[in-house]
């Protein structure tokens, strides 16, 4: 990365239009996501959680930067790697943790678990167990928002791998011809499980596909919170103004294995280390300190505070009741 002076960093922040308070809140959320997932991993290792989980450690700027451009009444759809999106959209960690433990008070009454956490009231229509499963639905949400004459938008996250499902094509094309207010955010973390993006696509950037739908497509550094925010902000403004959908590609990297059973034979340790050196949290901290908005001391405790919030969430979750098996048939039908 080129050397930046204090004025460069100041200028960058000024062009983004974000206030110091918003940026500090964004940094807090990134820490919270990191802390949630590190704890989730530890709980799994202790055998306290069953099933599987997909960690987004290293991708926090993508989730937080994108949601920073949204209003509380906007809707998101998320993926199997969805803890970050959920926190970024404003979910409460204790209720997320309770879902993770399969408890009755959890966001999905313990029925969904990590792969299905949804905060319907908070505008998060859920993580999704199906790759690209959210894409057509987001097009439908966009349709609904348009038909109800609102200026709300729908933002949908999906991975690089999802862009090779047929659903991707159908969803983007329909949104494009009907000019629906949807922002398609592809989190290109280089791999779909073991499949390298380079092997799965005959093109260099997934955003190139936008041309096929006649919509804007941009690729940004997904570990740069400001870059993500600005790209999404532009797309959201377009959508609110009735100008239709956009495709944004956040280039990032997942630090952990795909899920809890990944031997990672498809990549090297060196590659992982290289990307760990581009930690999006440290990057934002450096930006804030470099721009003289905060001192390093002022930011020093954010990680510890986030970890404490998560510890408290675990304590809350563990104390809650499991669902009563007698209620198992509830909720299948309205």
């Amino acid at each position: 990365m080129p050397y930046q002076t204090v004025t460069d960093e100041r200028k960058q922040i000024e062009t983004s239009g974000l206030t110091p308070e918003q940026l500090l809140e964004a940094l807090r959320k990134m820490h919270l996501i990191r802390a949630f997932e590190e704890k989730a991993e530890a709980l799994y290792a202790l055998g306290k959680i069953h099933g599987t989980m997909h960690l987004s450690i290293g991708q926090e700027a993508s989730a937080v930067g994108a949601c920073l451009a949204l209003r509380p009444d906007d809707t998101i759809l998320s993926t199997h790697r969805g803890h970050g999106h959920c926190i970024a959209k404003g979910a409460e960690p204790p209720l997320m943790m309770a879902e993770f433990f399969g408890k009755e008070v959890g966001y999905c009454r313990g029925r969904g678990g990590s792969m299905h956490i949804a905060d319907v009231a908070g505008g998060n229509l859920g993580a999704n167990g199906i790759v690209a499963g959210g894409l057509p639905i987001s097009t439908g949400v966009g349709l609904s928002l348009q038909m109800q004459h609102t200026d709300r938008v729908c933002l949908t996250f999906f991975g690089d791998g999802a862009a090779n499902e047929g659903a991707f094509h159908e969803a983007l094309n329909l949104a494009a011809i009907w000019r629906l207010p949807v922002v398609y955010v592809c989190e290109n973390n280089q791999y779909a499980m073991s499949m390298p993006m380079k092997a799965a696509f005959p093109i260099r950037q997934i955003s190139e596909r936008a041309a096929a739908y006649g919509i804007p497509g941009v690729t940004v550094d997904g570990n740069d919170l400001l870059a993500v925010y600005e790209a999404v902000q532009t797309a959201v403004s377009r959508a609110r103004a009735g100008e239709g959908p956009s495709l944004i590609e956040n280039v990032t990297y997942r630090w952990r294995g795909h899920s809890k059973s990944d031997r990672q034979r498809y990549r090297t340790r060196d590659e992982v280390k290289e990307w760990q050196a581009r930690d999006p949290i440290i990057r934002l901290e450096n930006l804030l300190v470099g721009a003289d908005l905060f001192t390093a001391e002022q930011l020093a405790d954010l990680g510890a505070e986030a970890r404490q919030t998560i510890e408290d969430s675990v304590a809350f979750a563990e104390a809650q009741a499991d669902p009563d098996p007698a209620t198992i048939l509830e909720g299948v039908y309205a």
Partner: protein
Amino acid sequence: MREQVLEKASGEPLQAANRELTYSHAIREALQLAMRRDERVFMLGEDIGVYGGAFGVSDGLIEEFGAERVRDTPISEAVIAGAAIGAAVTGMRPVAEIQFMDFITLSMEQLVLQGAKMRFMFGGKASVPMVLRTPAGSGTGAAAQHSESLEAWFVHVPGLKVVMPSTPYDAKGLLLAAIEDDNPVIFVEHKLLYRTKGHVPEGYYTVPLSQSEVKREGRDVTVVATSIMVPRALEAADLLAQEGIELEVVDPRTLKPYDADTVTRSVCKTGRVLIVHEAPKTAGFGAEVAAEIVAGEAFDYLDAPIRRLAGLDVPIPYNRELERTAVPQVADIVREARALARGEY
């Protein structure tokens, strides 16, 4: 009975009678033998190469056969099925993998409207010799979109065969038979069975499709069970034997075309039948089994109503206890079979 099938099918002598393999290893061995024997056999699917498959079934196969024959695909289930069909109808014998049976929903059009009907629509002038392997079932905490048991959907489609092995021995022999078969075969594995062990002979052998097997003989109650419910029924049979109740456990192994005769013979002997599967009860495969029983010779021999024990009509929940509640467990089979045997229904 098992040894008979083996000799008839392979003509090879049994080696190492006590050789034990896991279910997943048995499947891998079948894939290996089929690919060594026939150049036309190849595999395609998601993460089946260096990753070794989501459940490790194809571990090491890319080293032996190369990326040309163990082909990693993008996440594109429609074209995985479609490419298998297209390759099969033009001279190859593909074995496709759909990573979880849930995702087969994305392959449906190609499988149901194309592959299954192609031969018939073309007046018998084409054949589609392909296998689609896929793991089904709950019990791993993976919740509603990674736990489906959709076998009945495919049983309903003329032109498809549906196989669902419960033991390592059957898994290997049935997979080899499926690969030899000139029709599209949906081969349904079970995640919880992958690590179970059992006797598996070395070398090439087939277990014929469409033969149900009596896994345990007994005089009191016939239990017709599929997939993971077979070991559960056998465990229930051990427990009930201590109370003097003898279960006869029948495993259809191939659901389509289904060999109803074996069940009929068993029901004529016991007069009581419990049908057990993991998939939701309504319109599940058990309904077909029950219909075959009452429609035929066994009807006159029934001493009790036919009982079905199946998954609840509910998506698979995440919470551990709810997940267990959603599908039959050993204790449920014991309870139902005991009630049948005692006439308490």
